[in-house]
C-alpha cells in the first residue's frame, strides 16, 4: 500500500514539507520501517538545529502568560506503553488493537456508524470502547491542531476512531470526521463541538482509505471539508 519511493521522503517529512496525503503514506511506512524511522529522528534533530539558528527572545510578557496558562491546564497521562521502536513490537500492538476492534464489532454488531448525525448510542458502550481506546493509545496518537489527540485502528472493514481532549469549539461549530484515500474524501460523522473525548466505530466500506482526518465545521457538518485539517491519522491495516 505504501508507494515504493516513500523512503526518499524522509527529508521532506522531517522538514514538515509534505501535504497530508504524502504525510499519511510516510507515517504508515515509518511504522514498519525502523531504518527510515531512525533516519527521520536524526533529520528532525538536524531541523531543530536549523530552528535554533533563528532564535529570538519573545517579549517578556509571554512568559507570565504561558505560566498562567499552565496553571489551569490538565496534563495528559503517560502512555500505557511507549511507542514501539521496532516494527515487530509495533505489529504486536497493532494486532492486539485490531483484535480488540474485532471484539468491539462482534459485541455491538450493527452499531457501525457510517453516516452523519448518527450514533450517540455508542455512549452506552463508552466503557468498553474506552477500554479499547486505551489499548490503542500506546500505538497511534496524532496531535490535533489546537489541542488533543487522534488515534485510529483498523480491523477488517471498520475503523475505530478515538479522539481525546479536543478543545471546545464555539457555539454552532462541530468536529467532523473524514475518511480519505485516492478515491477522495468522505464524511464519516459529526461530533459535538464540546464533546471533549469521542470514540467512534466507522465502516470503511470502500477499500483504499488511507487516513482519518478531523476538521471543524458549521453545525450539521459539511459535504466536504471547508476548513483546514486539524488532525490526520493514517490507517494501518
Amino acid at each position, binding site marked *: 500500500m505504501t508507494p515504493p519511493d516513500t523512503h*526518499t521522503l524522509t*527529508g521532506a517529512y522531517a522538514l514538515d*514539507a509534505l501535504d497530508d496525503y504524502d504525510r499519511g503514506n510516510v507515517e504508515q511506512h515509518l511504522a514498519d520501517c525502523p531504518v527510515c524511522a531512525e533516519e527521520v529522528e536524526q533529520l528532525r534533530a*538536524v531541523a531543530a538545529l536549523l530552528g535554533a539558528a533563528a*532564535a529570538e527572545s519573545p517579549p517578556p510578557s509571554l512568559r507570565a502568560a504561558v505560566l498562567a496558562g499552565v496553571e489551569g491546564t490538565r*496534563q495528559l497521562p503517560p502512555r500505557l506503553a511507549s511507542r514501539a521502536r521496532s516494527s515487530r513490537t509495533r505489529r504486536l500492538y497493532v494486532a492486539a488493537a485490531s483484535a480488540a476492534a474485532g471484539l468491539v464489532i462482534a459485541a455491538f454488531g450493527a452499531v457501525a456508524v457510517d453516516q452523519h448525525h448518527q450514533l450517540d448510542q455508542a455512549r452506552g458502550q463508552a466503557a468498553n470502547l474506552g477500554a479499547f481506546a486505551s489499548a490503542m493509545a500506546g500505538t497511534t496518537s496524532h496531535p490535533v491542531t489546537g489541542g488533543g489527540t487522534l488515534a485510529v485502528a483498523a480491523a477488517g472493514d471498520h475503523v475505530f476512531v478515538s479522539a481525546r*481532549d479536543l478543545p471546545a469549539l464555539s457555539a454552532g461549530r462541530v468536529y467532523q470526521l473524514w475518511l480519505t484515500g485516492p478515491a477522495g474524501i468522505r464524511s464519516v460523522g459529526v461530533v459535538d463541538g464540546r464533546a471533549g473525548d469521542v470514540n467512534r466505530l466507522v465502516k470503511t466500506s470502500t477499500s483504499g482509505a488511507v487516513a482519518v482526518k478531523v476538521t471543524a465545521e458549521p453545525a450539521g457538518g459539511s459535504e466536504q471539508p471547508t476548513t483546514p485539517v486539524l488532525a490526520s491519522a493514517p490507517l494501518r491495516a
Partner: protein
Amino acid sequence: MLADHPDGRPLRSVGDRARADAVASTAAAFPEGSTGPGSARSAADLLLQRAGRGDQDAFAGLYDLLSARVFGLVRRVLRDPAQSEEVTQEVFLEVWRRAARFDPELGNAMSWVSSLAHRRAVDRVRSAQAATDRERKVSAMAPRDSDAGHDEVGEQVELRLEYERLRRCLGNLTELQRESITMAYYNGYTYREVAELLATPVPTVKTRMRDGLIRLRDCLGVGA
C-alpha cells in the same frame, strides 16, 4: 535564509542568567546528570521529564531554556509577531499537556519541542495560505527583514556556537540543497511548492532535501 544574514547577526535570547539558573536547578535535582555548560540538551530532557510529573518550576525552567528557540522559529515561519506569540504560547501549553509522553529514548527534548513548534507554525501558515500566498512567495525570495536594532539582550553561547557551526555546514551544501531545505523549513513550503518556486522537477527537490539534510547531519555530527 541563513545565507542572507551578515556575519555576526546577533542572536537575541533570554540571556545567560535564566539558562544558567535552569541548568543549575536541574543539576541540583539530578546530581548524577551531565548538566555542565554546553549541555542545554540534556538539561532540557530532564526539565521536560520533571514537567511531565506536574512540576511547574521545571516547566518554567524549560520555558527559559527553549522559549527563544521556539519563538524565533515560529516567527521565522509566520513573520507576524502577534501571531507568533500566540502560536508560541500554544506550543508551550501543548508541551505541558504532553510532557508525560515525552520519551528520551525516542529523541531529545529540544528536537521534540522544535518539531512541535515547527509543525504548528507550518499548519498556521498553510491554513492562511490563500490569503497570503503572494506575500509568502515574495518573501521567500527576499532577505528577511532584519530585526537588528531592537533590544540586544545578550547571547547564549551555546546558540552562538550552534549557529556558527550550522553556517559553516550549510556552506558545504549545493545551492539547490540549501535553498530547498531553507525554503521548506523557514517558509513552510511543501516540497511541491519549492519545486515550483525553483522551477526544478519535484523528484529532484525531494531528493535534495533528503541528501542535503543527511550531509548536514554528518557535518553537524548529529548521532544516532
